[in-house]
């Protein structure tokens, strides 16, 4: 016999269920990205919640592929909207620093070879250095190194050509290295 209490509302529930099954496992990834972009948990929660509602609204436009990539793209868009609504231009997505090229970044050679031991950095210092990076750098580093996404996937999320992703990623790594060398030099001076 028909079990009406199940049949009724199944269409609504079915869509929601499929969405939750696909989307909820990526909640940590979505939150982590939002947290690194906004810099704090409360705003990251707002951005993620907004992103999930938006993703649900546009769920029908998801046509296969890696759901995480699709979702993180939406998280990023929600973040950009959030900036527009909530922050002054100070927070606007910083463009890549002008004149910063691979060669100028590499040219910074440490006097002290120990400074190159990036392994010796502690999490707290690393977090502070990351937050000092321009957002464009921070996001490619996160997507590449933490989310382990390919250049192509990062290009899809950031709506940037793949070639730009490659060069930006390269500069982002060098910029982080430069910050670390700077921090390390300061530490050495202060005898820490």
């Amino acid at each position: 016999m028909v079990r009406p209490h199940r049949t009724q509302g199944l269409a609504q529930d079915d869509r929601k269920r499929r969405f939750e099954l696909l989307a909820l496992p990526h909640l940590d990834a979505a939150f982590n990205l939002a947290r690194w972009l906004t810099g704090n948990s409360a705003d990251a929660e707002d951005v993620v919640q907004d992103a999930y509602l938006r993703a649900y609204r546009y769920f029908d436009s998801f046509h296969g592929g890696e759901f995480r990539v699709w979702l993180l793209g939406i998280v990023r868009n929600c973040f950009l909207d959030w900036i527009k609504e909530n922050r002054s231009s100070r927070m606007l997505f910083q463009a890549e620093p002008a004149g910063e090229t691979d060669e100028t970044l590499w040219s910074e050679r440490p006097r002290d070879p120990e400074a190159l031991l990036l392994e010796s950095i502690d999490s707290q210092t690393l977090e502070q250095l990351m937050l000092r990076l321009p957002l464009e750098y921070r996001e490619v580093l996160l997507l590449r190194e933490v989310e382990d996404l390919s250049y192509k996937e990062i290009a899809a999320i950031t709506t940037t050509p793949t070639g730009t992703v490659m060069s930006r990623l390269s500069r982002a790594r060098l910029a982080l290295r430069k910050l670390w060398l700077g921090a390390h030099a300061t530490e050495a001076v202060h005898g820490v």
Partner: protein
Amino acid sequence: MACDRFRALLPLLADGALRQPRRFFVARHVAGCADCAARVEELQSVGTMLRTKLPFHRAPPGLAARIGAALPREAPPSVPRRWFPVQAFGGGLAGALAGVALTLMVVSAPRDAVVQGAIDSHVRSLMAEHLMDVATSDQHTVKPWLSARLDVSPPVRDLADLGFPLLGGRLDYVDGHKGAAVVYRHAKHIINLFAWAAEGRDTGFSETARQGFNVVSWRRDGIVYYAVSDLEADQLAAFARLVGGG
């Protein structure tokens, strides 16, 4: 200088993003060039540093539930309605059936907060890597592990030959009850079977659906059970009868 030709490709080499035969030529150059080798190593160490040292911010507890609650109950009209057979009977009959359903649910509905708690624990277990404290399909390992830590000893059996392989178990809290969560799988669906001690007489199976999950609950021999999964309701009901059928 030969290096100039390779400099721009070093990050790609470090990322493993070069295909043959280009990878071969770049790698051969790097092998013979201390300067480029040092650069590749540095690029890789930046990556290693981020992967191993950068704090990962997990979603705070409760965010999943808040999102679930905020999702609209109704699908947008653009979604094809698959339940047209019911609709085809006309509103009158559908309404009557709904009325029957409502009655059934009121009679057999398990406690609301507990159902919600069980679903929350289920979702949490899938999101965190904390699905199992003891991951084994060996029922003779899972059962003693749980009994040693709890005041109840829920039956644990491997139902692999019936399509529900045992994955393991863990301790969990559901709506304030400390209990066991025995984890099963059916095809790609995970089933959490929560169990804790509760006085009272044995009950039948009652079924609920919420937030896209199905829940079957019952009480037997002083233990309350909640089976939660995104499995189809009929299959979960079958599973409940296999586990709780005595």
